[in-house]
């Protein structure tokens, strides 16, 4: 474990800390809103530890609170989490082996994968993945517990602009890889696809449909063409 901290450079460590702080703040908001919907204090905390995928937990409690069946809530949550399968398929070998692997798989999430996509050698990727994964696995439940304890004292997070934080973290982490034009094209097509289909399909599907952008990555890039990429 200690080698993780030794391998991390200062910039990555600061970025991991920033991402974990943001996740903790979301956790506070999640805990508070779940309690406000009438669930017992332990529920969001147990879910934060065992599911460790914020969006699906919010969706789960949201559906049940709105009177939906728990089965529908599970299906919706799993659909939202389906992206973790291709994440795991894409991630380089960062999970370790033995008992560590069980934990390494559990801490697979949007942020930790984004850290693993940043250019660099295998040791650096693994260190960034684990640092972010463990950090989120601690900050998310701790934030949820704090929010559940504070309840209605927690201010409205959208007034604080906190909803802009999650996309900016992911965007900042994938930008280095997007400086490559051949990669940028399928990524832009995929993102556009997701936005277009989002109003018509259940949550979770748009990002999977975005994978259709991969057809633009099938052909090797042609080095002779120099026309600018359409925005």
């Amino acid at each position, binding site marked *: 474990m200690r080698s993780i901290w030794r391998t991390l450079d200062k910039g990555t460590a*600061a*970025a991991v800390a*920033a991402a974990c702080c*943001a996740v903790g703040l979301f956790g506070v908001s999640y805990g508070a809103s779940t309690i406000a*919907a009438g669930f*017992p204090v332990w*529920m969001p905390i*147990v879910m934060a530890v*065992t599911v*460790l995928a914020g969006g*699906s*937990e919010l969706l*789960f409690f949201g559906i*049940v*609170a709105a009177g939906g069946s*728990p089965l529908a*809530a599970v299906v919706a*949550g*799993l659909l939202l989490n389906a992206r*973790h*399968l*291709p994440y*795991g*398929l*894409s*991630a380089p070998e960062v*999970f370790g082996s033995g008992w560590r*692997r069980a934990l390494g*798989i*559990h801490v*697979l999430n949007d942020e930790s*994968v984004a850290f693993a996509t940043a250019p660099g050698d295998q040791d650096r990727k693994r260190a960034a993945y684990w640092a972010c994964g463990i950090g989120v696995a601690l900050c998310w439940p701790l934030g949820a517990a704090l929010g559940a304890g504070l309840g209605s004292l927690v201010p409205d997070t959208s*007034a*604080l*602009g*906190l909803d*802009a*934080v*999650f996309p*900016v*973290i*992911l*965007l900042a*982490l*994938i*930008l280095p890889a997007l400086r490559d034009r051949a*990669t940028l094209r399928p*990524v*832009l097509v995929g*993102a556009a696809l*997701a936005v*277009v289909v*989002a*109003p018509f399909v259940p949550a979770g599907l*748009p*990002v999977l449909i*975005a*994978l259709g952008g*991969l057809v633009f*990555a099938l052909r090797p890039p042609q080095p002779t063409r120099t026309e600018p990429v359409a925005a």
Partner: protein
Amino acid sequence: MNAPYLLPAMLALAVGTYALRWTGPALRHRLRLSARTIHLLDTGALILLAALVATATLPTGSGELGIALPAGVAVGGILAWRRAPLLVAVLAAATTTAVLRLIGMH
């Protein structure tokens, strides 16, 4: 809130999510992948993350699309593109969104 079957449902979400996380690395461990396939998988992860960014920034599904959130994300994105530290980009994004909402531009 005490819906029936709430506990089994929570357990199912936890177990199902772990299974989704476990499947990818398990498959990758067993398959012998060419460099080209690995490149495609790398691109796939970037597409998923970018699509998540796009749908979180332009929540077209929710029906309330304002300028404050996309503007905040754009400010953060530009700062990140110019290699500002993540904390700076994040704070600038949140501040931009919060200020735009404060002055009533939702």
